[in-house]
């Protein structure tokens, strides 16, 4: 992956998408599907973000790409894969015209990609810490990228815990991943649903109730949160109340974005533009901003 595609003559055109083919589709639930993508074009050198590890690792967990869908324009979508994985993944919730069109595309169809954009999760700062991942619904997508990165370099991180909430058992997404993580024994996965259903034996209730059962060590724990705004608000409040420092509570924001380059201003947030100053923020940073998620 790379920031820019180069036009003939060596001119960098920041708006020109790279072609990518859908090589596999995972139907996560009736409203979420994961697209596994294979970039088709020779990708020119990235602007400094390429890691020494080699191949397509020029993006980092928490970053997003602008995805072009035929006749629908572009939308920002978080990368759900880890740079340590061989393939590029986007998990998409059906919410509007563009995402509905993404849900209609078959294997073999192409989309356009620009990016990666945005500030990633500060993985280097999390070395050695216990990581508590808290996600709701599609919010697991960006956290999946972090989790896979942690699992690729287990020696660098402390114990990993995941709290994952869905509306109903049928809405539980990322089943393959959850099963694999659970089986690996390296992630403590705890699931909950808002409304139970016949056959569901797990927890029923909000993810905050799962959180209440945990007793995280506030000094050694960092929390990574992604989900709908009310969940982010509740979880930030609750984790902060357990004594975890606001600098160690990290979340990622969703905004309308059109350029990804810090120009179009759709993602304005006080003096920030979320596409370049975010989307990943610590609670300490958010407290300085006037923001819906903290309402």
């Amino acid at each position, binding site marked *: 992956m790379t920031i820019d595609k180069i036009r003939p003559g060596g001119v960098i055109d920041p708006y020109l998408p790279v072609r990518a083919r859908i090589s596999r589709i995972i139907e996560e639930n009736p409203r979420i599907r994961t697209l596994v993508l294979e970039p088709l074009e020779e990708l020119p050198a990235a602007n400094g973000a390429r890691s020494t590890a080699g191949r397509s690792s020029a993006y980092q967990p928490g970053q997003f790409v602008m995805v*072009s869908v*035929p006749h629908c324009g*572009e939308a920002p979508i978080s990368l759900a894969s880890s740079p340590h994985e061989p393939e590029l993944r986007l998990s998409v919730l059906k919410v*509007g*015209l563009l995402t509905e069109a993404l849900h209609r595309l078959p294997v073999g169809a*192409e989309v356009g990609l620009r990016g990666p954009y945005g500030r990633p999760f500060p993985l280097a700062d999390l070395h050695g810490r216990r990581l508590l991942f808290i996600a709701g619904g599609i919010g697991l997508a960006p956290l999946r990228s972090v989790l896979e990165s942690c699992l690729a370099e287990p020696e660098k991180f402390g114990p990993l815990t995941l709290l994952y909430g869905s509306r109903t058992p049928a809405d539980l997404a990322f089943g393959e991943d959850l099963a694999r993580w659970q089986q690996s024994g390296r992630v403590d996965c705890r699931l909950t649903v808002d409304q139970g259903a016949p056959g569901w034996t797990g927890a029923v209730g909000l993810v905050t109730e799962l959180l209440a059962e945990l007793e995280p060590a506030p000094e050694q724990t960092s929390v990574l949160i992604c989900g709908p705004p009310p969940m982010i608000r509740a979880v930030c409040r609750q984790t902060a109340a357990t004594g975890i420092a606001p600098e160690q509570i990290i979340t990622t924001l*969703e905004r*309308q974005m059109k350029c990804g380059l810090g*120009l179009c201003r759709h993602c304005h947030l006080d003096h920030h533009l979320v596409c370049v100053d975010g989307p990943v923020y610590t609670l300490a940073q958010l407290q300085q901003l006037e923001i819906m998620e903290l309402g």
Partner: protein
Amino acid sequence: MSDQYLLSRDHLAPLLRRLAKEYRLVAPVRNDHGDTMFQEIANPVATVPDLESQPQNSLKDFLFPQQEHLYDYRLDDAGGYHFQPPATTTPPTLFFGVRPCDLNAVLYLDVVFLPGRRELSYRRRRENSLLIGLNCNQPFADCFCAAVNAGPFLEEGSDLQLTDLGRDFLVEVGRAGGAEIIRRWPHFFRSAPAEERNRRFQLYLEARGGFSRQVHADQAIKRLAADTLPSGVWEELATRCQDCNGCAYLCPTCTCFTIVDQPQDQHHGRRLRLWDACTATGFTAMAGGHNPVQPGKDKLRQRFRHKLELDVKKHGRPSCMGCGRCVGACFGGADILHFINLAGR
């Protein structure tokens, strides 16, 4: 600006005719309807620039046009998705008669668009342009540039800066492009004696005194920064705003844009970049329906905070240049001058 020359008023048209051979000449032109706009002058003898009125449009129309064709896209039968940029040519352009507010606006656009090589077309157009500025001896009806330090005279930023002394123009050389003009066509210019330079200062003082109204932009800026606006300001503005987007589109420094696809048929379409406005409800609304900006009350808040608070914090000066184009254009009277007045209450 160091080097100073005189250009006789009589020699202005011949100079422009000379320059028009090398550049696309763009200057304010008054048309049959009495409206004055920046536009190309193909024949500077037949079409004389209008230096008496404020042009309705700013250079934003040229450097960052309302609609820009980014790509044509094509879908092949195998699912392939191809983007092709349209062919573009950018003729070297000389903008003549640019007022200090508009020139400062271009300097602001430079700060937004030039760093980081994020923006191709603006850079291409900007690198191919020369700016000849004209100081304002008399403010226009709605102007308040002095209140935001963007005029009525310009200290730096243009290639050549003109001051109307009556029989002559005082010509100050600014950036390299200006020096190049003097070097190539020296016979149009003669060096300016000291008393003419002093007259420039006199005229500047007179122009500063010529504003018909007091605009306390500094007060609004202070209160925004300290979060001590009188209550109810945003609510009152919101009831007056009619969602036309006009203030943003007329503004020489508003740069919000969007990118949209226009389908032609199943296999073809084009991608455009369009001006957008942060006052529009849909500007921030997300596909799922969440809107991080409260549509009613906060409608104009981002706009005025951006101009008078956030850019002050980021760039050290407000991004309102006091050109007054949005003043009087607002359907309900919710323009920036109205805001400044409310904020100072």
